[in-house]
């Protein structure tokens, strides 16, 4: 199948891993995810000021301002994300929270805000947005416990809390394996979802780690005292040694 600007789908998947946006006006897209386009399109930085009114209305996430751009004009725009699956979501006066690195684009009719859970963005209102995932997305109704690494997001629900599996941790101690500085796996620590709504799970977050998590951590260090920064430094060194 050979596509051209007429035959490419409008606001639909080209295949499981590529999505074609029919841009007429403006759309927010994640930087670096455009793979090709037909037509007259321009790309402007969110922070550049050219679309101040639009950004003020729809982009309420200063931490991620460098991760998104505004696509303007008329044309067919194809997005891809390292061969990961891409799906579009239609919100009708709803809210969906998604791992920020996986938010590929959204219509300006939606409002994009930072979630209270670090590394996640919440999309509110009515409109379409795009998210990538490692493998197809699986929807689960709560109550459910999810490994943080496989969590893509959640809809119409309160934020999750952590739950530790003490049986598993005891077993690990019994085997004389050290936890110190080590990464905890999904078997000993999960995110616990309760209430009404849906949880979105993917097969792995590996390969999807964007800069946003790092930016988030760096931004939070600005409020630390000197002795706290030293403490942080020693933790980082310990982590590095344990890698």
């Amino acid at each position, binding site marked *: 199948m050979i596509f051209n600007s007429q035959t490419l789908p409008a606001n639909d998947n080209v295949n499981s*891993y590529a999505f074609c946006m029919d841009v007429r006006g403006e759309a927010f897209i994640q930087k670096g995810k455009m793979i090709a386009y037909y037509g007259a399109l321009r790309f402007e930085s969110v922070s550049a000021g050219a679309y101040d009114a639009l950004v003020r209305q729809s982009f309420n996430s200063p931490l991620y301002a460098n991760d998104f751009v505004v696509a303007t004009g008329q044309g067919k725009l194809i997005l891809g994300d390292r*061969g990961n699956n891409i799906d579009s979501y239609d919100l009708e006066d709803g809210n969906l929270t998604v791992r920020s690195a996986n938010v590929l684009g959204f219509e300006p009719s939606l409002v994009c805000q930072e979630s209270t859970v670090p590394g996640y963005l919440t999309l509110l209102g009515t409109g379409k947005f795009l998210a990538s995932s490692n493998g197809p997305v699986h929807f689960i109704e709560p109550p459910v416990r999810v490994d943080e690494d496989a969590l893509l997001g959640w809809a119409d629900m309160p934020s999750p809390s952590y739950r530790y599996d003490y049986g598993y941790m005891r077993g690990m101690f019994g085997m004389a394996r050290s936890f110190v500085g080590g990464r905890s796996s999904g078997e000993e620590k999960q995110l616990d979802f309760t209430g009404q709504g849906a949880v979105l799970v993917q097969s792995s977050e590996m390969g999807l780690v964007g800069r946003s998590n790092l930016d988030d951590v760096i931004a939070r260090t600005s409020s630390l005292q000197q002795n706290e920064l030293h403490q942080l430094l020693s933790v980082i060194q310990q982590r590095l040694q344990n890698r």
Partner: protein
Amino acid sequence: MTAFRLENKRLLEVTLQNERVMARAGSMVAYDGQIKFDKSILGGEGLFGALKRRAGGEGMPLMSSSGTGRVYLAENAAEVVVIPLQQERIFIESSSLLAFDDGLRTNTVFAGLRGATSGQGLFTTTLEGYGQVAAISDGTAIQLEVSPHDPLFVDPDAFIGYKGDVRQEFVFDVNWKTFVGQSSGESYQLKFTGQGVVYIQPSERR
């Protein structure tokens, strides 16, 4: 002509009957029958070929498999796309090349300058003749038509190759740089005009 068949989306099966196929070195995962393996290098023959290889930094190591049997080729679980050539020429990014018929002529051509300041040249591999080419694509490859009234713009990281009467230009755009971001570092986009087909992958090159 050797028989190229997709055993599944990510595995190419080439059946040889006293024939030879050229493949990216290290891409073979299994074989049966009586097959002999030899070393080769991509990028044109002779002294001129060698000079161009050096200039272009190309010269991907290849493996030639000859004999009778089946060889199975794959690369990093990328999807495979088989492109038949009928007395045509394909321009292909050498890092996307998986295998090709021994009967095709290969060459390296100068594609343009990467940047006015760096002056670094860009070279592309060409394959010409009658036969088959297998390319790898991270995710399912997409074929996009270029026609005189419908030019196409492509991220260099997603570009696999093109065939037809197509002109390739490098477009330098300040906004593009902002847009593509720090990860890629490419400050240009590819613009295709003319009449033909461009192959892209839904991914940045690894």
